[in-house]
């Protein structure tokens, strides 16, 4: 990095830089090969279509799927909407109007479910354990004869916690219920195999694996069972009628190449990222008292760390960490003042939920950067605790839960 004034980027779960190799693969499709993939009458269209199909094959290979099972979208929010609304709408005539999901899902799933509730669906929101996980037994117990779809994320965006996807998929398969997973955070970082894991629909996004923003995909199983969905965007009948709209050819080319790189480098890269995260985690929890990792450590993405520093408020900590780019679990920066609903659902005390940082490590993170980060966090947490009345009370041996606070 030549630009020393820029913060160190540790927010790879939010988005990633486009890998220079991916950018290079995309560039010709902006200028030289600018054809519309739906143009059947000339070489411009054929080139574009060929590039789109090559990308489709790369993504399918990464999932152990067939290329025909990949539908390109504008991103994972659209994929989640298409999967859930598409299945529910298609099955509406069968009377299946029940959806199973979890309280810790991304808003793209939760708000889609809320929308469907207003249109006559019933939704079961499964609670999570303190480690952030759902059990296959919970899912099985929630299934009903009228359940249309189960939608549970592969890896949580805030904590990196992994659900037992294979077993959940098996429970759904046994009951004949479709299983959708929002695999955005997992795809390209850990193996996602739709056959071995009994997945019927999976949402993917390019920009979480060093591809461009604005392009994603939905995996829709074609065999055993054949999943049918009602399209949600109508028009020219692109993507076999599943999703109309001119294809984003450069974006799709980038997505395909990013998926290929992620697949080829997955084993070595996930080991490297895991080692880096563990280095940072060990330093933070040993050097800072009352530093608590949120969610299961065992069942977790290699690069994600969600950690609370008790008695320090998250937004003030972020303000002191202006040399690093991380995300706060608390939404204080918005008008709502609500701590993270994901951490709350895991049963975290409010002050811990208000004190959390999400640090996500990626392809361009170095150990030197993380040593700088550990030093900086240690200094800032100590400085803010010296300023914290809660820390002072705890040092005096006062149990904060015995105090009558004045909520405002």
């Amino acid at each position, binding site marked *: 990095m030549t630009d020393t004034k820029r913060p160190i980027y540790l927010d790879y779960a939010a988005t990633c830089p486009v890998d220079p190799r991916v950018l290079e693969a995309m560039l010709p499709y902006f200028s030289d090969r600018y054809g519309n993939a739906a143009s059947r009458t000339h070489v411009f269209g054929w080139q574009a279509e060929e590039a789109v199909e090559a990308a489709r094959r790369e993504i399918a290979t990464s999932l152990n799927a067939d290329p025909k099972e990949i539908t390109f979208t504008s991103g994972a929010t659209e994929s989640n909407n298409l999967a859930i609304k598409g299945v529910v709408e298609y099955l509406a005539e069968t009377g299946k109007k029940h959806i199973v999901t979890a309280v810790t899902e991304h808003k793209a799933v939760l708000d889609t479910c809320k929308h469907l509730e207003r249109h006559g669906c019933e939704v079961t929101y499964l609670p999570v354990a303190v480690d952030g996980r759902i059990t296959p037994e919970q899912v099985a117990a929630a299934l009903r004869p009228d359940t249309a779809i189960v939608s549970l994320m592969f890896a949580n965006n805030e904590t990196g916690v992994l659900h037992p996807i294979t077993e959940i998929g098996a429970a759904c398969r046994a009951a004949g219920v479709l299983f959708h997973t929002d695999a955005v955070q997992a795809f390209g970082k850990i193996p996602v195999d739709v056959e071995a894991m009994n997945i019927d629909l999976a949402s993917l996004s390019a920009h979480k694996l060093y591809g461009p923003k604005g392009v994603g995909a939905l995996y829709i199983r074609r065999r055993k069972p054949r999943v049918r969905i009602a399209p949600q965007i109508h028009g020219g009948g692109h993507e076999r009628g599943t999703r109309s709209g001119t294809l984003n050819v450069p974006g799709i080319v980038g997505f395909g190449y990013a998926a290929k790189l992620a697949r080829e480098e997955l084993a070595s890269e996930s080991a490297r990222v895991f080692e880096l995260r563990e280095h940072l985690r060990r330093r933070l929890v040993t050097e800072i008292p009352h530093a608590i990792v949120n969610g299961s450590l065992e069942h977790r993405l290699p690069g994600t760390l969600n950690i609370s520093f008790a008695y320090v408020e*998250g937004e003030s900590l972020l303000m002191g960490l202006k040399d690093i780019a991380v995300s706060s679990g608390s939404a204080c920066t918005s008008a709502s003042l609500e701590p993270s609903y994901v951490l709350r659902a895991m049963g975290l005390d409010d002050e811990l939920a208000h004190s959390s940082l999400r640090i996500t490590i990626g392809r361009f993170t170095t150990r030197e950067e993380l040593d700088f980060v550990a030093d900086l966090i240690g200094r800032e947490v100590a400085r803010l605790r010296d300023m914290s*009345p*809660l820390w002072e009370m705890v040092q005096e041996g006062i149990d904060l839960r015995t105090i009558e606070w004045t*909520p*405002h």
Partner: protein
Amino acid sequence: MAYSNKVIDHYEHPRNVGSLDKGDASVGTGIVGAPACGDVMKLQIKVENGVITDAKFKTYGCGSAIASSSLVTEWVKGMSVDQAMQIKNSQIAEELSLPPVKIHCSVLAEDAIKAAIRDFQQKQGAPGSEGESKH
């Protein structure tokens, strides 16, 4: 979120961080807010002959909450108790250029100084308790 320069200055160089002896009869202590809401302020004043001669704070909260309490400790020093009672949250918000979502931080700082004054006045109203800890 963009913070005003004054908020950043108070956050990076907070004035009057610390604690006074809460058992001292000339010291008033106000603790307002709640951990659940993401901010707790402790503000203390020392009053001699009706004049605030010292003020300290500790705040758990966002940068604007820290800045609001730091600013108030600066302001009240040298004020009479009655003058301090007149401090309005709008003055704090204006001085720090707080955006609308952070107005509650200035409200909390006003509440904190009022709570500290009430605590001091209660101690004065009960002369027998002078020198004894109320906690």
